[in-house]
């Protein structure tokens, strides 16, 4: 999992955010009231404009695809989990995810490895995989260590198969090699057979899944 604390998130916003982003974030973090979390919805939406969406350079975090606004939103939610009752924070997280627009959903999914008690968040992450939006799906499926670390087999297999379906490269799924199973290959091979029966091309990523299992 990602070992990134609140201080590190603030530093990243200072470096990669728009001018004034760090000061805005510090004020916002101070204002978070664990007894009035409704205000956090406003902060999460506002992060996009106050911090910007500059991409983080590769290697800045041990995760891919992050932008400055993702970092700011992660700081806000990490602060909520620090201050609020865990049960309340988990429920609020689910509401924000369900009612967020696409960019908010992306951020909320990317930050999952930074939040405490991952088992309580798995169902929200699994639900997010049912999206029709490729960018939201990529936020949970690609460069994110959370699914491989915490998803049950059935849900992880569905995630991989959905990536194959959506032409999202399975090579971008963090921790995939450790989670390839005979059952996942069976599902992938059934899909290949279905494509063959329909005289349609078979995604090359199915071959990659076989290689990963054989190389273990």
């Amino acid at each position, binding site marked *: 999992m990602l070992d990134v604390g609140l201080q590190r998130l603030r530093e990243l916003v200072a470096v990669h955010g728009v001018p004034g982003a760090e000061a805005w974030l510090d004020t916002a973090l101070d204002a978070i009231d664990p007894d009035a979390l409704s205000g956090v919805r406003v902060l999460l939406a506002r992060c996009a404009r106050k911090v910007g969406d500059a991409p983080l350079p590769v290697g800045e975090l041990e995760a891919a695809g992050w932008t400055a606004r993702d970092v700011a939103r992660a700081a806000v939610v990490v602060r909520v989990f620090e201050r609020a009752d865990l049960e309340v924070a988990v429920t609020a997280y689910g509401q924000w995810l369900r009612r967020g627009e696409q960019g908010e959903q992306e951020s909320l999914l990317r930050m999952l490895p930074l939040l405490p008690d991952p088992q309580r968040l798995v169902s929200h992450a699994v*639900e997010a995989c049912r999206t029709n939006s490729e960018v939201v799906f990529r936020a949970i499926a690609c460069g994110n260590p959370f699914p491989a670390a915490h998803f049950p087999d059935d849900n992880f297999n569905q995630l991989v198969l959905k990536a194959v379906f959506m032409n999202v490269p399975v090579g971008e799924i963090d921790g995939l090699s450790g989670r390839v199973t005979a059952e996942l290959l069976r*599902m992938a091979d*059934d899909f290949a*057979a279905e494509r063959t029966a329909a005289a349609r091309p078979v995604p090359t990523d199915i071959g990659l899944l076989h290689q990963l299992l054989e190389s273990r």
Partner: protein
Amino acid sequence: MKLFDPHIHMTSRTTDDYQAMADAGIAAIVEPAFWLGQPRTHTGTFEDYFLSLIGWERFRASQFGIRHFCTMGLNPKEANNPEIAEAVIEMVDLYLEKDGVVAVGEIGFDDQTPAEEKYFIRQLELGKEHGLPILIHTPHRDKAAGTRRTLDVVRDMGVDPSLVLVDHNNEETIASVLDTGMWAGHSIYPNTKMDEHRMVSIVQNFGGERVIINSAADWGVSDPLKVPKTAQAMREAGISDDVITEICWNNPVAFFAQSGRLDLEAVTTNVRVDQTQLWFGNSVLRGQTPRVDD
């Protein structure tokens, strides 16, 4: 030749689509309750959706001479949301009794989770309680295994196979569905699922008995004219008009007539279009001259 599209999500389509469908010979449709492309956050939005299926949408269809029926159900994707699933099921129980509701659906598996199975079984029970046929959605991912599991659940629940339409079949699933005595639906799509020419091959191999086709047109890339286009492809391939009529009209009519809410005589007569009519004060027209049939 009258055509029936037994699976189309018209709430996502335009009046141009209705006009084109009517011009192409589509005289009746079934609109299954499904999801809206993104998850709903409240049970109340399901109720308004269900009301539109039996209200405004039926009226819109009538304004273009098309008979509109629908199915009610909690779709498998949203069955996974514990915040809404139980309350929606209670609502489905009420709405299944409405006029023009000709089946429970579309229900079944998506991710094949325990929650999906629970609500699939519950809605098979609702079908028995309300005396309605069942329209089943089969999963896109892990399709062959998901379809086998679907057939097992239906069998274990003791549902009469003649009351079950299993949809979105392909070359690999049709035989197993027909072998059970259930009806096999095929969604003809521009890119995924099934296309016209593959469907022609399936009909050449399996014939028309209990075979049904639909467009499954919705808010995504899809084509509301796939039933007439597939009928034409079958005709060009030398399939007889009797078989085409069986697949594109007689079969869906016979299947949904098992609800007791699709009158066999009424459905074969033309809808008299009167575009001067209003629905709660609303017209589908925007200043055009209303069409009024004699």
